[in-house]
């Protein structure tokens, strides 16, 4: 509903980041729940691939914005949202067992590393917090425009 009203071209990208962080929390919580399960291998989402997709999306959004401004000097830049479904395929949000992992495999076949899991969880949580603050700022801005007062 708010897509055409996106206050900034970055809003849809921030939404993708928030979605990714949410999914990753799910996977990391599963790793902690299975910390004693024999044979369980720690899983994760493809973070570096996601970052690459994000960088591509930012570049595309920039080029689209400048083009829109050139064609329509008074146009609202946010009205040209990049096609995000191609840039963020569902496979980016699927957990996998990374080939290279920190820690050692224990006798029960589990490669638990609770420090690593909590480090990643903390980073993920801070990242999500940061993105949500940015989104909140953008919606506050939109709210201010609608209400015609800051």
């Amino acid at each position, binding site marked *: 509903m708010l897509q055409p009203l996106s206050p900034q071209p970055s809003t849809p990208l921030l939404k993708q980041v928030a979605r990714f962080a949410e999914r990753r*929390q*799910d996977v990391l*919580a599963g790793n902690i*729940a*299975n910390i004693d*399960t024999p044979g369980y291998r720690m899983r994760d989402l493809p973070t570096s691939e996601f970052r690459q997709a994000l960088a591509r999306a930012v570049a595309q959004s920039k080029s689209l914005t400048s083009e829109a401004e050139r064609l329509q000097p008074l146009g609202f830049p946010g009205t040209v949202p990049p096609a995000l479904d191609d840039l963020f395929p569902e496979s980016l949000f699927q957990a996998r067992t990374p080939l290279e992992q920190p820690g050692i495999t224990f006798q029960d076949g589990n490669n638990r590393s609770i420090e690593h899991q*909590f480090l990643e*969880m903390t980073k993920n*949580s801070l990242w999500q917090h940061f993105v949500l603050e940015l989104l909140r700022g953008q919606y506050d801005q939109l709210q201010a425009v609608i209400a015609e007062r800051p």
Partner: protein
Amino acid sequence: MFRTLDISASGLAAQRLRMDTIAGNIANSHTTQNEDGKVEPFQRRLVVLQAQPDSSGHEGQGMGVTAEVDIDKKTPPRLVHAPGHPHADANGNVAYPNVNVITEFVNAMEATRAYEANLTAMQMTREMIEGTFKILG
């Protein structure tokens, strides 16, 4: 997002079940007859953990854990020479349960820490959910 809490909750439940069985093992570490009054040493219980994929069939998401109680039938009972014991056999030996209290305590420590880890994960998920709600103002 709320499903993440369910995953951590499954971890909490599994570790609590482990603590339950450990407490039972320690409580029965000298039990020499079964619940029917027959002479049979208590057999140590242990918890078998298994990763549980999402019930909705979403492959590639976080996994919960399921726990089941099993009986340790492989470890032999501890034989103690005590001819005066009413449950002693013909050689004067009493079969005590196959419970090693030190092993139980080590497992109890592990279960406690894993329980705490799940609690911390839950706390962090909670903070993330609260952050999401704040967007709405």
